[in-house]
């Protein structure tokens, strides 16, 4: 008798347990649905309306490529500010700044990563922490601090040499290098952490001096990380608006700065089209970067 009631209690407990588990599972299923909805819905709307027949965002009236066509053909409704030439120029500026900043940041970032992973020197912990600073501090803070820094520095140079330097590509590139170094260093370091340091010793043991050991063993092994870091840097550089806005001079507008200029007037479907193109480009680069990192870890 006692045994039976014991059994009954257990059964109801099991049933209750099963219910909570089902509820929990439903919640877990809903979580990503909402997350992805809020993440992707605005972007999907932007992409959608870049193909919208109507100029208004009130309703989707039909599919068209004419806004894409417009941005390549100097037409932008009634707006005078737009010309394909200015846009292409801004795009060229973006590519130029991105390429130069990426090359410099990749070399410096890789060197820092190597020093951090292999070196032993005083203050290493501090430098290590400071390396993450550009990743965590608000972009606007960094932008303003860079703008002030350049102003002060150029004032001093003007006082000393009598020559006035104006902001331009060099300031944008320097600014981009500063934040990109961190990203490159972090990505390359992750790769180095996966690499067996004994491989470098093995190379030296077999007669390779440090220079050859680096180029024949270390570098090929961290190359996926370096490329991945470079792609990330290039993408961040292409996408950056805030820092570029505060450090650019006359005639050095990059594509995001140009788009912002258009927005000051009104959000036109052409802006949607340009934004869509930029997004596709960035996603592609980040995708390749991630794929390189994935390859990295599957190798180790």
């Amino acid at each position, binding site marked *: 008798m006692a045994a039976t009631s014991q059994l009954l209690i257990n059964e109801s407990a099991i049933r209750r347990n099963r219910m909570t588990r089902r509820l929990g599972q439903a919640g877990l299923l809903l979580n990503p649905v909402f997350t992805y909805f809020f993440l992707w819905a605005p972007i999907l709307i932007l992409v959608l309306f870049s193909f919208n027949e109507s100029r208004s965002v009130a309703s989707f009236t039909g599919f068209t490529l004419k806004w894409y066509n417009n941005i390549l053909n100097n037409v932008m409704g009634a707006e005078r500010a737009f010309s394909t030439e200015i846009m292409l120029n801004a795009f060229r500026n973006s590519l130029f700044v991105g390429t130069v900043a990426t090359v410099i940041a990749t070399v410096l970032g890789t060197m820092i990563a190597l020093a951090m992973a292999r070196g032993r020197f005083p203050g290493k912990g501090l430098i290590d922490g400071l390396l993450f600073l550009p990743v965590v501090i608000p972009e606007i803070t960094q932008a303003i601090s860079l703008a002030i820094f350049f102003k002060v520095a150029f004032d001093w140079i003007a006082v000393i040499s009598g020559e006035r330097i104006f902001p331009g590509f060099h300031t944008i590139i320097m600014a981009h290098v500063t934040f990109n170094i961190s990203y490159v260093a972090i990505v390359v370091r992750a790769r180095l952490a996966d690499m067996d340091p004994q*491989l470098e010793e*093995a190379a*030296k043991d*077999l007669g390779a001096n440090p220079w050859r050991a680096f180029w024949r063993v270390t570098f090929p092994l961290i190359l996926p990380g370096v490329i991945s870091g470079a792609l990330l840097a290039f993408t961040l550089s292409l996408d950056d608006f805030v820092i570029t806005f505060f450090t650019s001079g006359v005639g050095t507008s990059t594509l995001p700065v140009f788009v912002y200029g258009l927005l000051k007037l009104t959000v036109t479907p052409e802006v949607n089209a340009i934004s869509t193109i930029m997004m596709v480009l960035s996603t592609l680069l980040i995708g390749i970067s991630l794929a390189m990192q994935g390859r990295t870890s599957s190798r180790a």
Partner: protein
Amino acid sequence: MATYDVELVDIVKEFDSGLRAVDKVSVQVADGEFFALLGPSGCGKTTTLRLIAGFEQPSAGRVLIRGIAMEGIPAYHRPVNTVFQDYALFPHLTVEQNIMFGLEMEGVNKKEARARAAESLEMVRLPGVGERKPRQLSGGQQQRVALARALVKKPAVLLLDEPLGALDLKLRKNMQYELKALQRDVGITFIYVTHDQEEAITMADRIAVMNEGKMLQIGSPRQIYERPESVFVADFIGETNFIAGELLERGPDGFGRVKLADGTVIRAQLSEALSRSSGQVRLAIRPERIGIATIAETGGEEIDPSEYTVLDALLIDSQYIGTDTRYTLQIGEATELVVRVQNISELDSSGIALGQAVTVYWHNSSATVLDI
């Protein structure tokens, strides 16, 4: 003056943390010798190897390779090569490229390097895998590639850091035999780091037993096993019974008289390293050197009482372990003694009952008197 392949003179290695990993180590390794550095983990054996390879610099003392002082000579200019514990094969290169790497660094032309790489793969009995990547090989095969990569350079000395540590038992036994044969064939000096005492005993010409940065004893496997000079060595190598006693007299013949806890006085061989001439000592006796006889039997066997130690004992446990039976006996009040008897016939393993009073005996030279 004889030159050795490797000579360490009063080597001290102190790390930044203050840890003294190697403490005043001096040793000479002769040409063509298979020399084992044996000790528990953290005893400084790997650090000693790394000092020879040039990956670490000694805090004091000198490393000489073929009579040349190695101070200031970087790893990549030393005539030694290393087989790393985890092989450290370059994952982005093929097996052949791995083996050719060292030759390429020497400036050997590609054609010759290729031929030598193939030759050395042949030598480690792994022909035809040159095109593969290391990760496509099994652990044992990778081990052979690591060997081939080091041997292709024809080093004066090959340094091996627990090379069989990652292999399973059966493969390890095979590789022990093969490595030894290979070493005999190529005639290269091997310095072999291991924590496996059996591996060291079966393979090495000479063994150095290390503990806490010090080299406690250097000698042939036989000397190390039969004539340990300290409690640590006796305990680390094989199984040993330790019996506390008091040394009464050091005889001129290398034997001494020792009084056991229960007052019995026995004769035992003095260790060469024994420093004291009286006072507390420890007797070390190998379990397989002790014989057991039931009281009834002793009458039948003639034992010379001047050559043998004979004691009464009580059987408290027996364990059948296949080849042997392992008996635990008690002598005196509280001293336990482990005895191993080979199971020559099926009857041997079941001969004595638990709790039975028996006699144990050993030849006086089988018991070694050690400092505590």
